[in-house]
C-alpha cells in the first residue's frame, strides 16, 4: 500500500537517513511515497496542518514531538496508536521514558518517536584552531578566550546562521550549559519570570553576548551552511544539535580528527530529549490504516533505528540496539544518555507561540548589537511571564 509521508528532512544527511526509513518500509511490501518539503519546520508545518485540517491527510507526518500536534490530537484528527504501542511494548523499549510522555495525551499514545536530538553540542573545527595556533578548547569558556586569536587568523570564531531558530536554540543551549540544569528548568518548566530576570540568567545573557560578538561575521542563512563553515575551517565552531554530525559525515570528516564535539558545551554534560516523531492522521481507508500500523512498527524496529540514526547523527530511542558503528561523538551522547543526564527540551516545555516569540527575540538579539543585554533580559523575562 502506498503511504505518503511528509517531513522536512531535505539536507544531505537528513535525506540519507530518510532513505533508510523508506527502504525499511518498502521492505514490508508497502510503498513509502516521499513528501519532503524543503525549508524547515516553519515552512512545512503549515502545509501539513492545512492538509490534515483540510481533509486531505497524508499517511504519516513528521513533527517535533511535544506540543506541536497537541491540538490536532485534541480535535480528533490523529490516530490513536495505543494498540500498536501495547503490542510492541513501547513503554518498555523506549528510552528515556520521557520521550513517550511527549506522545501521550490523556493516556493515549499518538506518535512514534524516532530519534533523540540534542541541541547541546559545540562543534569545533580542528583545522581552524590549528591555523589560528591555539589549542582546541575544552569548554565554552576556553572557546570564548580563543576567539580573538581565531579572528586574527581571519576565521569567524562562532558560526550562527541567520535563521531565527538557530539563535534561539543557541541561547537555550547556553542556558542549560552556562546556567545549569536547574536554571534551565526553573525558567522553562516553572516559567519563573522573576528568576529569569535575575542574576543567574544574567550570566547566561553575558555568554550570549559573547556568542553574538563572535558570530557577527557569519553571512549565511541555513544551519548547514554554517556547519559547512566549520567543516571547511572558515569558522572555529558552531553551537548546533547533533544533526550537524550528519553533515560532517557526508563531507567525509572524522570525529576527533577533523572535528571535535563538546556536549553541553563542555560545561554541563546533559542531553535534551527533543527529537522527531511521526504522527498518523486518522484515515478512512482501511488498507492505509493497516499500512500506518506497519510503518509505526517499522520505525521503532531496532534495525531501522540503527540505520536511520547513524545517518541522521541522532541517538536511537531504544536502549537495546547495537551501536558499535557509532562514531566518537555519538558514543559520547550515548554515554550521557546512559548516565541519565537528560533534560526535557523546549518543544515539550513551551508552546510554539512562546517558542516563536523567543526566536524573534534572539534573532533580534544576535543581529542587532544595539540591543543591550539588559533590555534583552528584561524582554526575555516578560516573555517567560506570559509563556504557556
Amino acid at each position: 500500500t502506498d503511504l505518503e509521508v511528509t517531513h522536512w528532512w531535505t539536507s544531505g544527511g537528513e535525506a540519507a537517513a530518510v532513505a533508510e526509513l523508506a527502504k525499511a518500509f518498502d521492505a514490508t511490501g508497502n510503498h513509502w511515497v516521499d513528501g519532503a518539503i524543503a525549508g524547515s519546520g516553519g515552512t512545512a508545518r503549515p502545509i501539513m496542518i492545512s492538509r490534515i485540517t483540510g481533509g486531505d491527510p497524508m499517511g504519516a507526518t513528521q513533527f517535533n514531538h511535544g506540543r506541536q500536534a497537541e491540538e490536532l490530537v485534541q480535535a480528533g484528527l490523529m490516530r490513536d496508536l495505543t494498540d500498536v504501542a501495547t503490542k510492541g511494548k513501547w513503554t518498555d523499549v523506549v528510552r528515556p521514558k520521557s520521550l513517550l510522555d511527549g506522545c501521550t495525551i490523556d493516556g493515549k499514545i499518538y506518535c512514534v518517536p524516532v530519534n533523540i536530538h540534542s541541541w547541546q553540542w559545540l562543534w569545533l573545527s580542528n583545522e581552524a584552531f590549528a591555523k589560528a595556533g591555539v589549542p582546541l578548547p575544552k569548554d565554552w569558556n576556553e572557546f570564548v578566550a580563543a576567539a580573538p586569536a581565531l579572528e586574527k587568523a581571519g576565521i569567524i570564531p562562532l558560526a550562527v546562521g541567520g535563521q531565527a531558530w538557530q539563535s534561539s536554540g543557541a541561547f537555550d543551549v547556553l542556558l542549560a550549559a552556562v546556567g545549569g540544569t536547574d536554571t534551565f528548568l526553573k525558567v522553562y518548566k516553572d516559567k519563573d519570570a522573576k528568576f529569569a530576570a535575575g542574576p543567574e540568567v544574567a550570566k547566561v545573557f553575558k555568554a550570549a553576548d559573547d556568542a553574538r560578538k563572535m558570530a557577527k561575521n557569519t553571512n549565511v542563512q541555513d544551519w548547514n551552511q554554517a556547519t559547512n563553515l566549520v567543516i571547511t575551517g572558515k569558522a572555529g565552531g558552531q553551537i548546533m544539535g547533533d544533526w550537524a554530525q550528519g553533515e560532517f559525515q557526508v563531507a567525509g570528516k572524522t570525529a576527533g580528527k577533523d572535528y571535535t564535539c563538546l556536549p553541553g558545551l563542555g560545561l554541563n554534560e546533559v542531553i535534551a530529549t527533543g527529537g522527531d516523531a511521526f504522527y498518523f492522521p486518522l484515515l478512512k481507508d482501511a488498507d492505509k490504516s493497516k499500512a500506518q500500523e506497519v510503518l509505526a512498527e517499522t520505525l521503532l524496529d531496532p534495525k531501522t533505528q540503527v540505520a536511520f540514526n547513524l545517518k541522521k547523527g541522532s541517538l536511537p530511542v531504544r536502549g537495546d540496539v547495537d551501536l558499535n558503528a557509532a562514531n566518537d561523538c555519538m558514543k559520547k551522547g550515548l554515554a550521557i544518555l546512559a548516565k541519565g543526564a537528560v533534560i526535557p527540551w523546549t518543544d515539550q516545555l513551551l508552546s510554539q507561540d512562546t517558542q516563536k516569540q523567543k526566536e524573534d527575540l534572539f534573532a533580534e538579539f544576535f543581529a542587532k548589537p544595539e540591543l543591550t543585554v539588559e533590555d534583552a533580559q528584561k524582554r526575555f523575562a516578560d516573555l517567560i511571564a506570559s509563556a504557556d
Partner: protein
Amino acid sequence: MADITAQASTAAGARQGITDPYGPKPRRVISRRNVFLYGTLFVMAVYYLLPLYVMVVTSLKGMPEIRLGNIFSPPLEITFEPWVKAWSTACTGLNCDGLSRGFWNSVRITVPSVLLSIAIASVNGYALANWRFKGADTFFIILIVGAFIPYQVMIYPIVIILREIGLYGSLSGLVIVHSIFGMPILTLLFRNYFSSMPEELFRAARVDGAGFWGIFLRIMLPMSLPIFVVAIILQVTGIWNDFLFGVVYTRPDTYPMTVQLNNIVNSVQGVKEYNVNMAATILTGLVPLIVYFISGKLFVRGIAAGAVKG
C-alpha cells in the same frame, strides 16, 4: 523628431549656405538630448539585464569556477551539467527528478486555471459593463478591495471552504483558488475594456435579438483579443509563479514547478550549488518569459485598452 535625417539637409545646406535655412533642420546624431536619452536608457537596460546575465552565466559554470571567480565574468568552460541536474536529477528528500515533474504539474495547474479564471472574469466584466443590475457595483467593489487582502489571511478560510466542498488537495481545488484570486484584477480589466467598446454595438445586437450569451460570444469575444492577451499574460505569469497556493493546496505528487524550485534551492546539501539554483531558476521562469517575449507588444496595446481607462 527623427534622429538621423541630417543627410538631406547637408546637401541642401551646401547648396544654400548656412545663412539661408532650407529643408529639414540639421540635427546632430550626438546631441545633448540624444546622449542623455540613450545614455539613461542604456544604463537602465543594464540594470534590468544584469541579473538575467548573471543567472545565465552562473548556470553555465562549474562550482569551482563560481567559488573562485567573478559573478560577472563569462564561464571559462561552459557546462550544461547544472541544467541537466536542475531539470532531472536534483533531489528533494528522496525524490531525485529535479524540476521535470513540477513542470508538467505546473502545466496541468496553469492551463485550466488560466482558462477558468479568464472565462469567469470576462463574463463578469461583461455583465458589469453591459448588463448592470442593482447591487452589481457593490459586489465589484468588494472584489476590488479583496485584491488588497494579503493571501496569507485567506489561507485558513479557504482551507475550510475547500474542505466543506470536498475539493481540498485536488487539482480542481487549486484551480478554483487561482480563479478566485485572479478575479479582482481581471474583472477590472475586462470591465474597463468592455465599457470602452461602443455601447451602440451592444444595443444593435440586442435589437437583432441576441441575448446575454449570444452577444458575449458572437459580438464581444471576437473583438477582445488585446485584453485577452493581457489577461492571459497576467494569469500565466501569476499562476505559473505562484508558490503559496501551490504548496498549501496540493499534495507532493502535484507540486508545481515553483515548489520544486523552492525545494531544490532550499535543500542545501553542504554548499549551495549556485549554478544548479540559477539553472533551476531560469527553467522555472522560462514559460512566462517566453510568453512575454512573444507577446510584449500586444501586452502594451491591451493595457492601453483595458487598464488605463478608469
